[in-house]
Each structure stands twice: as structure tokens, then as C-alpha cells.
């Protein structure tokens, strides 16, 4: 140590990296029971904990005339069964130190637990009961309904929630993605226990379900548990949504949600994006990373580090069974809202207009491929990816090949991908912020429509006066 203190150290250049080690996506066990239900196990015995998810395919996309149905059905699974009350269920699991949760996504519903592995058998009995014979008691339905109505009310004071709700509506209109997954005041008020019984019966069938177990659990033990608790269950698979294309609008809507007391605008700019199992998904993923997917992205370097408009700018393709939304956005101070929008549109256009430099491309590839091991560090992270493979029908070696597919992309590929998947001239521009200011400053992007927090149009008094 004395040596190193006396040596003059040359700090001027970054040290050379060592030799990287290859990190393959871990192998995992699969078994399909006679009734068609699949059991997937990823073993990791480093900690004495296990997490199990029982998943049914199909989610909020199938809400139909009842937005919020999948989400509320899923939540109520753990709120009472033929033999257990809501209180029994949560008390049982929580006493063992575990946690239980259930919920719906656009393409799945699930019940999950995380618990010390020595309690797994007992916890699985509770889970099986909630999945197989939920009772949707009226009293619990009312309780959850009241909670959800309060949540909806709460969301009206959250700038990002308001912006996202308006954005979804502007982009998708009457398509299921246009309405909130948790429903609206009206649709939540109308949900009844029999609808949930039906929705559950149709989807939690053996052929439409799978179980993932990760952590401190052996495949043999999990298969034995699954056979015992689910082996006699019947039912076929339910068809998934088709890959139909969602048309982009011809012009771009400019919509403002008025928050009179706002000190910032929450901006979202975008349009319908890509389906999760589309062959272009990986190039789109890399394109988005460059545009707004990480700290070193163009949007963040421009809006945060260069201009100081925001604490962070970002972009995301939320890929679902059908083309989920692409949105770029930031929360910026009131006065710079129009300038921030202009910069976001410019960065989108720039991705289409010119190929990225080799240096920028190499940096983002290094980031994506190098951080891959960090994405599969914990058993729970591995589980999330296995669920993606199952829900979206990806190849079992999808994540094994992921890095090599990223590395194969060229600057031209990225530009071509941008030209296909980014459309700044047809992107909805939405801001939740001070309406009196934004109504004027956003005019230059197109006619501004103003909405209140409940989603109702606010008539433009001034322009009406001019029209008459």
C-alpha cells in the first residue's frame, strides 16, 4: 500500500477492461400436466425464499363493454372463496411472513405469492383455493369498488395519470387500449359479482393457465404440488387477441388537460406502437433506447442535461398483444412546455432523418448487452421474463439469442426502423398543465382542445366568440 501512495498514478485515461464472461439466460424446467396446464420452475437455492405465480392468459383487453372487469375480477380472487374469508386468506399468508397479491395486465391475470420456502405447501393450498373457487362476495365487491372509485378520484390530481388517460383516449379512441385498465367512474359503478364469476370461469381453465415457481423450490416438489392441487381441473385454452393493425390518425391531435394550479406540465407525445411478438420488436427496443430509454438517451441529454427543462425525459414502446402505445415525454416547468414539445418532435424526426453514429450505436449496444446479466440477477427478474415468453408465445431461446440479435443491428437498420415505427407528424401531443397558458403556446402544433380532469371538453369561449 505504501508503494501505491508513492507512485504517481496516471488517471488521465480509463483503465482497460478485463475479459468479459458470457452470461446465458438460465435454463428452466417445464412440465405440462395431462389437463394442459403448464408448470415452469426456475431453481435458485441461494436464499430460502420462493415466489409462485398462477397465471391465466388474457386480461383487460377482453373487458368489452365493462372496462375495469379483468382488473377487479383479479383483485377479488383473493377476497374470499367457498371456504375462506378475505381476512382468513390475508391473515394466513401474512402470518407466515409472506405476501399475496393478484392483478390483471392487458394480456393476463394472475395470483402470486412470495414466501419463505419452508411454508410453500401451506401457501399453495391458499393460492389454489383463490384460483379455483373464488366467491366474489357482494360485501367484498362493494369494498373494492369504493376503494377503486377513490383511486379514480385520486388520479385526477396526479399530472402523469391525467396525461396518460388523455393520451390513451386520443390515440386509441374506442379500441380497448383507449380506456383505463381500472375502468372509469361509470364502468366501475356497474361491475357486479356475476360478471366476475363468468369472467373467472371462462379464463381460469386448465388449458388457459400456467404456473411459474422460482427460487428455493425443486421441480419434483412443484410438480407434485401442482398435480395435487390442479390436476383434476378441466377446460380448454381461450383464443388470444389477433395481431390486427391499429390505424394512425391522419392529423395530430393536440390536447390539454387543464390543471389550473400546476407548476409543471406533464407531456406525452406518441401514437400506436408495436405488438410484443412482432419480428421488429428487438430493433424497435434498441431504437427506443437511443431515443429515450436510458440516461444517455438523446431526449434526456437534450431536455435535462443540455437545457435543464426537466428532471428526466423518457420514451417507451409499451408492447402488448396488439400495438400498445409509444410515448415520449417529460415533466417540465410551465414556461418551457412548447419548447420541450418542439425538442421531442425534433428528436423523433432526427431518428428518421439520419443514421446514428457508430460511436452512439456502439455505446447503446454495450449498455443493452452489458447490462443483461443485471436484468437476470434475482429469481424474480428471471420469472418476469419467463412469463413474457409464455404470454406472448416467444421462442424458448428468445432471451438466449437476445444479445446477438441486438449486436447484429446496423445504423441503417435503426434508421429504417425509425422510419417505420416513429411518426412525429401523426403523433398525439398531450399535456396536463395550466390550460390558460398552454391553450395559447401550443397552438403552433395544431388546434388545441382543452379538457377538464374528468375528461370533459372545455369549450373554447374566445374562438367561439370570434366564429359568431
Amino acid at each position: 500500500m505504501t508503494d501505491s501512495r508513492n507512485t504517481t498514478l496516471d488517471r488521465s485515461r480509463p483503465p482497460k477492461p478485463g475479459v468479459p464472461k458470457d452470461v446465458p439466460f438460465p435454463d428452466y424446467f417445464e412440465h405440462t400436466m395431462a389437463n394442459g396446464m403448464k408448470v415452469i420452475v426456475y431453481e435458485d437455492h441461494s436464499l430460502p425464499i420462493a415466489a409462485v405465480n398462477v397465471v391465466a392468459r388474457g386480461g383487460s383487453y377482453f373487458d368489452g363493454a365493462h372496462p375495469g372487469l379483468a382488473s377487479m375480477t383479479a383483485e377479488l380472487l383473493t377476497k374470499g372463496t367457498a371456504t375462506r374469508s378475505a381476512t382468513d386468506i390475508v391473515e394466513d399468508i401474512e402470518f407466515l411472513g409472506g405476501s399475496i397479491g393478484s392483478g390483471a395486465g392487458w394480456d393476463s391475470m394472475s395470483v402470486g405469492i412470495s414466501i419463505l420456502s419452508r411454508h410453500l405447501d401451506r401457501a399453495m393450498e391458499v393460492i389454489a383455493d383463490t384460483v379455483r373457487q373464488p366467491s366474489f362476495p357482494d360485501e367484498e365487491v362493494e369494498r373494492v369498488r369504493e376503494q377503486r372509485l377513490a383511486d379514480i378520484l385520486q388520479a385526477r390530481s396526479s399530472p402523469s395519470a391525467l396525461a396518460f388517460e388523455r393520451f390513451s383516449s386520443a390515440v386509441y379512441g374506442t379500441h380497448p387500449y383507449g380506456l383505463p385498465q381500472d375502468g372509469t367512474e361509470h364502468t366501475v359503478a356497474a361491475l357486479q359479482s356475476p360478471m366476475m364469476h363468468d369472467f373467472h370461469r371462462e379464463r381460469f381453465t386448465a388449458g388457459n393457465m400456467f404456473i411459474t415457481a422460482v427460487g428455493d423450490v425443486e421441480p419434483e416438489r412443484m410438480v407434485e404440488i401442482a398435480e395435487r392441487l390442479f390436476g383434476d381441473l378441466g377446460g380448454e385454452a381461450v383464443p388470444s387477441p389477433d395481431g390486427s393493425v391499429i390505424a394512425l390518425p391522419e392529423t395530430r391531435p393536440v390536447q390539454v388537460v387543464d390543471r389550473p394550479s400546476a407548476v409543471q406540465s406533464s407531456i406525452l407525445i406518441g401514437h400506436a406502437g408495436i405488438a410484443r411478438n412482432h419480428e421488429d420488436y428487438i430493433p424497435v427496443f434498441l431504437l427506443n433506447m437511443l431515443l429515450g430509454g436510458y440516461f444517455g438517451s438523446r431526449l434526456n441529454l437534450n431536455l435535462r442535461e443540455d437545457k435543464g427543462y426537466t428532471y428526466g425525459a423518457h420514451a417507451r414502446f409499451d408492447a402488448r398483444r396488439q400495438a400498445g402505445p409509444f410515448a415520449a415525454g417529460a415533466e417540465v416547468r410551465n414556461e418551457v412546455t412548447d419548447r420541450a414539445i418542439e425538442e421531442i418532435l425534433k428528436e423523433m424526426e432526427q431518428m428518421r432523418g439520419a443514421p446514428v453514429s457508430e460511436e452512439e450505436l456502439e455505446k447503446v449496444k454495450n449498455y443493452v448487452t452489458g447490462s443483461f446479466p443485471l436484468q437476470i440477477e434475482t429469481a424474480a427478474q428471471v420469472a418476469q421474463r419467463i412469463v413474457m415468453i409464455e404470454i406472448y408465445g416467444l421462442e424458448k431461446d428468445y432471451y438466449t439469442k437476445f444479445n446477438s440479435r441486438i449486436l447484429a443491428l446496423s445504423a441503417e437498420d435503426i434508421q429504417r426502423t425509425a422510419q417505420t415505427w416513429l411518426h412525429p407528424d401523426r403523433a398525439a401531443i398531450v399535456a396536463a398543465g395550466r390550460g390558460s397558458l398552454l391553450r395559447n403556446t401550443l397552438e403552433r402544433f395544431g388546434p388545441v382542445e382543452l379538457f377538464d380532469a374528468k375528461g370533459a371538453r372545455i369549450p373554447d369561449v374566445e374562438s367561439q366568440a370570434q366564429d359568431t
Partner: protein
Amino acid sequence: MSGVNVNYEEYDLPNGMHVILHRDHTLPIVAINLWYHVGSKNEHEGETGFAHLFEHMMFQGSENVPANMHFHHVQSAGGTLNASTSFDRTNYYETLPAHQLELGLWLESDRMNSLAVTEQTLETQRNVVMEERRSRYDNQPYGTMLMELFARAYKMQPYRWPTIGSMTDIQSASLEQVRAFHRMYYRPENATLCLAGDFGTGTAQELIAKYFGPIANGDGEMYRPFIHEPPQTTQVRDYVYDSIPLPGLVVGMHIPDMNAPDFIPLDILSYILTSGESSRLYHRFVYESRIAQSILSFAYDLELPGLFIFRIIAQQGKTPEMLESMLWKELEDVRRNGVTASELQKAKNRIETMFVRAVSSLQSRADLLNSFRVLAGDAAKLNEHRERIHAVTQEDVQRAAATYLTEHNATCLHYLPYPKKSSEQ
């Protein structure tokens, strides 16, 4: 108990920097986690938010790493990174592929050794931090609850201003202050470095000595406030109007610092009261009587005496008065009758499971080791924590409730929606 133990070794460099090494070869990843023992409590009135603004400036360039190149180097190497500032400490961390360990040490040591900031980068970061304050607090429903509570609960302790600072103070921070702060607090003897992951002990020690060994300590005595509030004898109450749809209640009671014997029973009590849907107060407020939409409580673990905090949001049509009267009734019950053996066991089981989850990633393991070292004085306390939890009795919990969760020791704030203008009805 599950017997999860985090093994490590530790030593000091001759310049006083403390080093903790935790090896785990499961994946070729290494977590670098560097703590400086300085936070907003080391600030003075009129200079609030400085420790946090300074944290942003640590990414704005050092002698050999130009502005923003820190991010560039780490992300190009396939790493992730961030930093955070609290009342008591500031931490910086990178998770890197194992073969890039030296890069991370080079980067962290260069900005401990030198700072190369400009008026322009400071101006940009002042703006970024003001937007951060708006995004996370001012423009966020209920976002100001804790800062408003702390501002009223403390008269003397330096927790009375928020870590993010006041807008005026953020605006007036100068480049000279930034440089002086670096010289004063970002010195080796005020830093603890923890490496966790896939490395050889010998190699790591050599590299750490190479990059951090030559860094000298600055002059001057670090300001370490040791200020304790006088005991509170009467309740503090106030009302705050905010743009919120549902009223809320936030209550804080003075409790001892995180290392005091009474702290762990209080921590366990917060689990019993509000952790999970089967917890006592969640069940009473949210499930049974349905007067609250959400409830949480926690014993704030701080170096100087902290607060036991309740944050309750009302259900539609319910008032903060109703929340408060039920809270006092429930706390009276705990003070008088204590908690059941089953409640205590459940809380211990939950804490055990949460501990196992918390140590599942290398970065959080490194952060925990540093946390116990810097704030509790010894990393070994991480592994002893389980036993200390285990030893807590029903009597300990009841005594802690009776001592601290009292009405005269409380600061109560009612959060109310702005009165509606007639045009909005």
C-alpha cells in the same frame, strides 16, 4: 430463523477511507457502493438543499472525466448507476459487469480526488433540481406532507428543512460553495466503499489502494451537528391546503435515534400497526370501518432522534377529524393493552422475509452493509439485526407505545382540498 448471513471483510486505507468487501461469484457482476457521511443535516439555514444539489454536481465533471462522461463510461460498459441524498448521508453506486470493476473505481476515485465544475453546469443542474422538486413534491398530490410535518415537528434539529431544499436556496448556491463542500466532506476519511460481487480479494485490495490510496484529506473540521430537540410537552397542530381530491392526516411523534434500544420495538410496532392488509390499523381503518383509503406508518431511522409517522388518506366523505379520533382510540388501546403474541410473531416473520428479499440483489446488500457501518457504526450489526428483532417482547412494544405514541408528543397536520370556487361546482 432462516440463517441468511452476509459475509464480508473490512479494513481502512492509510488515508482513513473504510473498505468493505463482500464476495459472491454467482454472476459476473460487481456492485460498487460509496457512502459519504454527509447529508442535508450538515447544512445551515439559508443554504438548504445544498448536499443534494452537490450530488448532482458530482456527475458534472472531474479532472479526467468531463461533464456527463461518468454516465457515458458506466453505461457504455453495460453498467447502471445512480446516487441519492438523505438527511444523514449521500450514496453513489454503480453495478457493472465484473470485468469492468477497475473502470468504476477509476471513476469514483477521480471525482473524490477532484472536481471540474463550471458556472454553466451549475446553472443547468440548479434548473434540473428545481424541476425535481416540482415533479416529486410541489406538483405531486400529498407530495409535501413529510416536509410540512418536519418543518413543524422540529424547532432546532436540522431535519426541519427538506433534503431537496428551498427554491430560493437552490437558486443562490454558488460555484465557490460547491468547491468548498467537496473539499470539506468528500474526503477519504469521510467515505466508506463497499464492493459486492464477483472479484478476487487480492485484486480488489490492490485496485482500491491504487485509485483511492493517493487521495489526501482536506483541512478543516467537518460540521457534525449534534442537536437534540427539548422534549415536546404540548401537541402541535396545523392545517395545510393542497390540490388534492381527498383529505388526509399526517402525524409525527418524537422518537429516539435509530441506534437507541427503543428503536427496534418501535420499528416492530409499525409493522404490527400497518404492514399488510391483516395489520391492525389497516384492518380497522381501510377494511372494517372504511374511513380511510390508505394508511401507512413507519419509525423513521435517523442518526439524530427521528419521528414515528402516520400518513392516512381519507375515504370519500370522511374527514381528518374522524381519522384522528380513531387513531387516538387505537393508540390508547395499544398503550393500555399492548399487542398480542400472534401479532408480534407475524411482524417478526414479515421482517425476516423482507430481509431475505432485501439481500437478494448485490447492490442492496452493499448498500445495507454501508448503512450499518456508517449510521450504526459497525457493518456487523447487519447480521446481528435478526437476533435483535427476535429478542423483542410484547412488553417492549407496549412500553415503547406508551412512552412515545402519546398525544402531547405529536404533531398533527390536516391536509385539506382547496375550497372550491363557485364556478367549479
